[in-house]
């Protein structure tokens, strides 16, 4: 293994993935007030609480940090969310993590191709459950472009940092897009035109997740800890 960045052969170890999601969880938990604000404006104000409950329960498991495959990390987060959060996002964010690795073989290191494949499955899983499409003002509006960005990054053989930066930016633009949309799902759906101008809560969380992943991997790179195969 060498230590070259921006390479298509970047990988994260099981432990790094574990720590990355601890970092992601902490960032989402820190964003609780922001998510509360957003969900208050056009929903019922509990999205921040829900995400906190979900990630707190996940972090309790992740902190033990004794997984031998990445599948288990995703599954653990997914189960913690489905098992404890409730609400629309409990099932949907839980499904995101669970369906990402459902039926996958043992994953011992995470490269861009695998990351892209996982989130591709996540998107399909969430859409199968929630029936939302891009443009319905849901988390899909951030997740779908992020997944597309990852796929293109993989096709273009970008490294992990660049891939996640693209995904994160795509998610962020997706959040911006939700501001001009009328909701078709979730508690905002009944508001019709009145939701225009407000971004979607679930989409915001998606964007925070990708941004945190990006930041974590950038940190690794800075510290020279980002490995290659």
């Amino acid at each position, binding site marked *: 293994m060498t230590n070259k960045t921006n390479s298509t052969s970047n990988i994260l170890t099981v432990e790094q993935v574990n720590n990355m999601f601890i970092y992601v969880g902490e960032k989402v938990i820190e964003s609780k007030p922001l998510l509360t604000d957003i969900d208050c404006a056009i929903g019922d104000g509990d999205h921040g609480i829900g995400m906190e409950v979900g990630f707190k329960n996940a972090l309790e498991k992740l902190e033990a940090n004794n997984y031998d495959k990445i599948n288990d990390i995703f599954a653990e987060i997914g189960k913690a969310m489905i098992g404890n959060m409730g*609400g629309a996002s409990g099932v949907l964010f839980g499904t995101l993590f669970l369906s990402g690795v459902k039926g996958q073989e043992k994953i011992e290191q995470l490269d861009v191709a695998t990351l892209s494949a996982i989130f591709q499955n996540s998107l399909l899983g969430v859409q199968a459950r929630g029936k939302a499409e891009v443009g319905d003002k849901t988390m899909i509006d951030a997740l779908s472009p992020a997944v597309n960005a990852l796929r293109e990054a993989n096709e273009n053989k970008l490294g992990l940092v660049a891939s996640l930066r693209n995904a994160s930016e795509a998610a962020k633009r997706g959040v911006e897009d939700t501001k001009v949309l009328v909701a078709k799902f979730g508690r905002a759906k009944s508001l019709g035109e009145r939701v225009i101008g407000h971004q979607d809560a679930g989409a915001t969380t998606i964007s925070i997740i990708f941004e945190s992943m990006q930041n974590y991997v950038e940190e690794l790179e800075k510290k020279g800890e980002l490995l290659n195969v």
Partner: protein
Amino acid sequence: MKKVINDPNKVVQEMLEGFLYAHGNVYKKTPNENGIYIENEKKQVAVITGGGSGHEPLFFGFVGEGLATGAAVGNVFAAPTPNTIMEVTKAVDAGKGVLYVYGNYSGDTLNFDMASELAEFEDIHTATVLVNDDIASASKEEAHNRRGIAGDVFVIKVAGAAAAEGLPLEKVTEITQKAANSTRSIGVALSPGSIPSTGRYTFEIAEDEIEFGLGIHGEAGIRTEKIMEADKLTQIMMEYIFDDIEITEGDEVCILVNGLGSTTLMELFIVNRKVTEILLEKGVKIHHTDVNNYCTTQEMAGFSITLMKVDEELKTYYDKPAYSPYYFKRG
């Protein structure tokens, strides 16, 4: 916002403990999750309701004889988890199947549907009736997308009565669906409720304004107006209902005037006075009237009017006895 609570993150757990201290002789809690149920002693079809907390006495206050058999209790304003629903399902199923009756919210359908999939794995047959009585939450064409509010009470009442008659799941479902199809509500909000774990109000409203159709979680409504006299307000609300469902001379209805939290019974009676006069003027027969705080939104001020149009069949089930600490009917 001042609240009589301890740890804001434990309100649901402590609420259920307090409820069980009062009524633990009859009510049980599922061991791992926030499920409340009574023993399905007569081995009937079980009726399970549920949803987010914060609407007390709904949902667990409508578990009882001739009512729901169990309730899956979520966090404040958050649908219960599939695990919770599944635990209650297992606790009350007597091999006759389980009917899920709950308000039509994205979070609830996602979680109940997931539970229903899990139940099928364990050979428990489930059916679902969604309550979508809130006519302000979507247009008539999109009626299937409407939310469930105080109409839950009527639909759970009928479901529980049908189950108590020993009918099979298909029949209980059919009658319950009929009750849901016959129920319409519209609400108005005067001031917001708060979420204990954030201590924040879920929406803002001007000191002299009211909002029609505002949801029981603070979802924004369809129309904001200056505060007006109760009679005028009631008139407008009734017109929304009449525009949505034909209720004419000779028809029969059950009325529920439901308070959202801090609106007083005094005000609810004043509303009921006008509701009744409007109906009587139309020649509509009033089968039964209930004025109470059944479906609340914490300390939100406001109320909803619910009408269930009843025929002989619905009346039969509506009139059957029912008993919980928060809802009762002598039959």
